[in-house]
């Protein structure tokens, strides 16, 4: 075994030592990198630049950052957009409402998704495949159309209200459509699979012998769950929760379709600033603030993923 491993390392060194990489092979790194730099990094840096400009009439509708005037470079940095963003109560209410909606959605996905993922992982292999497929299937079908399905259910003359009225449970139709409640339902519905899948992946890998050991040592089921299963599945919970939280903060389609005019979300705010007010600096500043809010969760996601990957590699070695 040891010898084979050493042999393998030798081959790797021979083939993939970076110093020996011919220049031509190094060039292979460039094309995907160039695409991402050109169409992901550069546009974002441009947004960052525009967020520090001021609105003006003309094309482009903002003041230039640097100007050559009398043979001297003149930088003009405006903080007006950020100032407005930090002081205006409507903007502040929008961030708070976005983050609150994302947090509540994430919490609901955890509460609904954890037991589902748990029972899927504990099912027999055949049932497991089927149940997993049933979680993945909506993921492949159009989100837009699935969210649209809720419109017909939640409207005041929709299915839910007519069912409840027919059963005599309510006297007057519930007003859900075009409220925050409808947005919550839509968000949870859309993002639940994003939580279940990574959590399932970490639950299914859990070594059942650990649980058996806990039972043999006299642990009750609740105890075994709280002290073995839950801690061991934490990376999956974190990954799933972040995959729900991060896109939800910037969600545009669901609040637009199910929410009312007073449903405040950053994605919508940015949209209005850009298309209705043609205020590029303001829209850019809203985008930058959104990214700033999401930087910590994104870094956390990256860190969590890297740690999980390392743990797996460690397990593979042993």
């Amino acid at each position, binding site marked *: 075994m040891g010898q084979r491993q050493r042999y393998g390392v030798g081959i790797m060194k021979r083939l993939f030592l970076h110093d020996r990489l011919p220049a031509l092979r190094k060039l292979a790194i460039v094309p995907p990198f160039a695409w991402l730099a050109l169409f992901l990094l550069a546009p974002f840096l441009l947004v960052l630049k525009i967020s520090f400009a001021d609105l003006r009439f003309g094309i482009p509708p903002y003041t230039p950052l640097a100007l050559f005037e009398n043979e001297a470079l003149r930088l003009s940095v405006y903080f007006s957009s950020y100032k407005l963003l930090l002081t205006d109560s409507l903007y502040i209410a929008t961030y708070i409402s976005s983050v609150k909606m994302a947090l509540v959605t994430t919490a609901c996905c955890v509460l*609904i998704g954890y037991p589902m993922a748990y029972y899927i992982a504990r099912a027999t292999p055949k049932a497991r495949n089927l149940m997993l497929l049933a979680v993945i299937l909506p993921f492949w079908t159009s989100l837009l159309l699935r969210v649209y399905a809720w419109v017909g259910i939640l409207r005041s003359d929709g299915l839910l209200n007519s069912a409840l009225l027919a059963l005599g449970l309510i006297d007057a139709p519930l007003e859900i459509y075009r409220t925050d409640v409808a947005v919550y339902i839509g968000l949870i519905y859309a993002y639940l699979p994003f939580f279940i899948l990574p959590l399932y992946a970490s639950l299914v890998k859990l070594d059942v012998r650990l649980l058996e050991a806990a039972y043999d040592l006299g642990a009750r089921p609740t105890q075994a769950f709280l002290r073995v299963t839950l801690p061991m599945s934490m990376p999956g919970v974190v990954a799933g929760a972040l995959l729900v939280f991060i896109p939800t903060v910037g969600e545009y389609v669901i609040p637009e379709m199910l929410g009312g005019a007073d449903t405040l979300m950053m994605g919508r705010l940015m949209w209005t600033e850009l298309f209705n007010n043609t205020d590029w600096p303001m829209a850019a500043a809203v985008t930058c603030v959104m990214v700033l809010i*999401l930087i910590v969760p994104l870094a956390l996601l990256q860190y969590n993923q890297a740690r999980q990957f390392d743990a797996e590699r460690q397990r593979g070695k042993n």
Partner: protein
Amino acid sequence: MRRGNVAKTNWLFRAVILTLGYGFLYVPIACLMLFSFNDSAMMTSWTGFSLRWYEELFNDQALLSATWLSLRIAALTATAAVALGTWAAYVLVRMGPFRGSGLYVGMLCAPLAMPEVVLGISLLLMFVELGELIGWPAGNGMFTIWIGHVTLCVAYVAVVVQARIRDLDRSLEEAALDLGASPLKVFFVITLPLIAPALMASWLLAFTLSLDDVVIASFLSGPGYTTLPLEVFSRVRLGLKPEINALATLFIVIVGICVIVASKVQWRKGET
């Protein structure tokens, strides 16, 4: 005795959770499909079976041309994203870590989690700016939507393909290299066929992502380039449109059959 009780309540809890969970995921879809055959335009009551919404759907020129545009963009996007994403994944697994690979991974993964509006607005502002500066791209349309979709999908492709390349048995490639094949030849003759299932899966994933995207397309589309999701979105944001029920039913049935067939094939492979 106690253990028996625990098992019973557990079983009950399990049944309730799974029924409610899957009910939540599937009841809306089921209602939508059922009411696409309803004669009335309302989703309140069942007035009789009818195919009139399907008929209306197939006579709706705007929807049909939007579908055609979307299918073309999705196919072009998926092809480019698979090529670029596979390339990126291969470079990352087999040549990394190199200088700047942190930035590389960051850029590659950013579109996975980042809200789509961020990518949409950045690209839009850049295209407008570039159009002013160098006259390219001349107006938004199919091309700009394609660039946005490829940038989004490369991330998904790279993740799927990367996992497959990591699991690959190195010995075949090493044997080919030892026998004197050039690295490029090894990639096309050995590696590529081995990762072909992952490429298929990621092509389909990119295709569906592009076909479903509203946000990026609404930033990057121009006059005359209304994709299917844009057309649907502009109709349903104002309320119910029964012809969209029919469209959704067709869409879900086609995608459902594809996904079920694909996973059946995969399971059979896993069994042997």
